[in-house]
């Protein structure tokens, strides 16, 4: 068994619109247990679990939580459900198939850190997720899992939905915060970090949907047990969005430490039409593109560091041999050029120039100078932009410069040849 079903255990077994189904399937049971524990005990379990954030950046969850718990006054919890990274759909599944699990995770975070209000920020395109979560929040209020004096305790918590309106950048934490405040989603300069000054300048704990969904699991089996799942670098299970030219596209839950090849071959059933793998992009448009020879690498953030990248939110996009590298890069760069918020210069202007250079490669009119410009520009954007968008948008270019150097050189040679005619 290569999968380990934990976060997805209720998928297709319960009616997501029914809180009773959820309750019958051990729902809110962990939250009830948590209500008898104190803040330190809960955060300590989460620290023992060694869980890292599942949204892409991979920051240790307990560190964020304990620094947030130390803040006083009005505090907010935000669930980042602005899943816009191409190739990812895990958060949509988590919300649409087991919405109360998300709410339970948020409740555990709120209770353990002393927050009294929360937002679930869902991208506007996810109409179905919005409807389902909205219904679940209503049901949770009705059954006193939200609201005042939850289940007779001293703990009160309000939760509401905020919708995005089609801006990828709003998945970035400060852009998301601006958007919740009713502004264009443009990031802020850090520090201060959201845990110090976030929504309405109050301390704010932002986590990804999948991160919240892990909390009931951690507190059910205990941090120690949880830390035994996975690899020496990353603990727990990871939801993988497997797409592209594989036979069985879909969402899979595997413990960290499985290899990319195992996921593609065993779960994905290999490449369609018996073709060979040409490239694999990891994490989404902001992730590295690697050749077939690197697929035996584990799924965890440490290993991915070799190409200055991270596992991201867990997308694996498989491309067969018939696809052209530069067509794929063009799609990636068109995406980022459209989605940059325009606040900082290297990102706003840089993506336009990178796109122009990639177009030259697509049209077989690229020179050696174009290649050198592309390489230096990609490094500048990567190193000088304000937020995660520009810091990661060049990963596909920088990784292919490393792993597909010959394709660049060949395209430059072919361009010369074409020019000659």
């Amino acid at each position, binding site marked *: 068994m290569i999968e380990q079903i934990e976060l997805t255990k209720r998928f297709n077994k319960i009616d997501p619109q029914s809180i009773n189904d959820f309750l019958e399937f051990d729902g809110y049971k962990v939250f009830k247990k948590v209500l008898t524990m104190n803040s330190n005990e809960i955060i300590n379990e989460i620290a023992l679990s060694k869980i890292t954030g599942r949204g892409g950046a991979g920051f240790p969850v307990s560190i964020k939580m304990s620094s947030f718990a130390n803040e006083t006054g009005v505090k907010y919890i935000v669930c980042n459900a602005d899943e816009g990274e191409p*190739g990812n*759909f895990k958060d949509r599944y988590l919300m649409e198939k087991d919405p109360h699990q998300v709410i339970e995770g948020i409740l555990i975070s709120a209770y353990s850190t002393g927050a009294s209000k929360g937002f679930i920020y869902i991208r506007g*395109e996810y109409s179905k997720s919005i409807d389902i979560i909205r219904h679940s929040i209503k049901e949770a209020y009705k059954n006193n899992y939200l609201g005042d004096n939850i289940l007779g305790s001293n703990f009160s918590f309000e939760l509401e939905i905020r919708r995005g309106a089609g*801006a990828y950048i709003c998945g970035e934490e400060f852009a998301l915060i601006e958007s919740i405040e009713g502004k264009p989603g443009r990031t802020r300069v850090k520090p201060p970090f959201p845990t110090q000054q976030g929504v*309405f300048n109050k301390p704010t704990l932002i986590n990804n949907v999948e991160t919240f969904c892990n909390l009931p699991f951690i507190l059910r089996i205990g941090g120690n047990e949880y830390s035994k799942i996975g690899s020496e670098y990353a603990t727990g299970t990871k939801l993988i*969005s497997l797409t*592209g030219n594989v036979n069985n*596209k879909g969402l899979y839950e595997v413990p960290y430490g499985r290899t990319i090849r195992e996921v593609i071959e065993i779960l994905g059933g290999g490449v369609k039409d018996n073709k060979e793998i040409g490239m694999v992009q990891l994490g989404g448009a902001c992730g590295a593109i690697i050749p077939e020879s690197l697929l035996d690498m584990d799924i965890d953030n440490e290993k991915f560091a070799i190409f200055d990248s991270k596992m991201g939110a867990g997308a694996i996009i498989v491309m067969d041999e018939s696809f052209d590298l530069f*067509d794929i890069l063009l799609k990636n760069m068109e995406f980022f050029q459209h989605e940059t918020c325009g606040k900082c210069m290297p990102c706003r202007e840089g993506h336009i120039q990178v796109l122009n250079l990639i177009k030259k490669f697509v049209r077989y009119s690229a020179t050696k100078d174009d290649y050198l410009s592309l390489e230096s520009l990609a490094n500048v954007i990567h190193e000088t932009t304000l937020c995660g968008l520009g810091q990661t948008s060049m990963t596909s270019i920088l990784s292919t410069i490393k792993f597909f150097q010959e394709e660049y050189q060949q395209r430059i040679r072919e361009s010369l040849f074409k020019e000659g005619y």
Partner: protein
Amino acid sequence: MFLQKILESYPISEDYLLEILLDIDKQKENHYISKEEITLISNHLGIKESHVCSVVSFYTLLSTNPRGKYIIQICKDVPCYLNDDFNVLKTVENELNIRVNDTTRNQKFTLEYTACIGCCDEAPAIRINNITYTNLTKDKVVNIISDYKEGKHD
């Protein structure tokens, strides 16, 4: 009238601006925010009109220009591209006789690109207003569009 109803459904606080705008967009047959509405919203929330405009223009789901009753969004990202062996965009363009970013003469359809809509496991996919259509084939696309043309979703 409907605008007043939407405004009253939220607390008078500027952070609800985006929610209000999305509700208006959904209710209006031609999916846009008019100049008059921008003025009314800014008065109601006590914020500048320019702020409302900056929000409308920042977010791609919102528009200040009238659009079709049905907004057809074609995903243009890699996972759909890899599974698109018949050219979804061309097929829709041919069926509607318009190009991307155009609206049909009868104001019924607007064709747009969208960033990934998270249906990559059932790619290729498109979204028409709030409904996603997945695992598309050429025939399926033609049928979907003709259903809308015939008014089966009106």
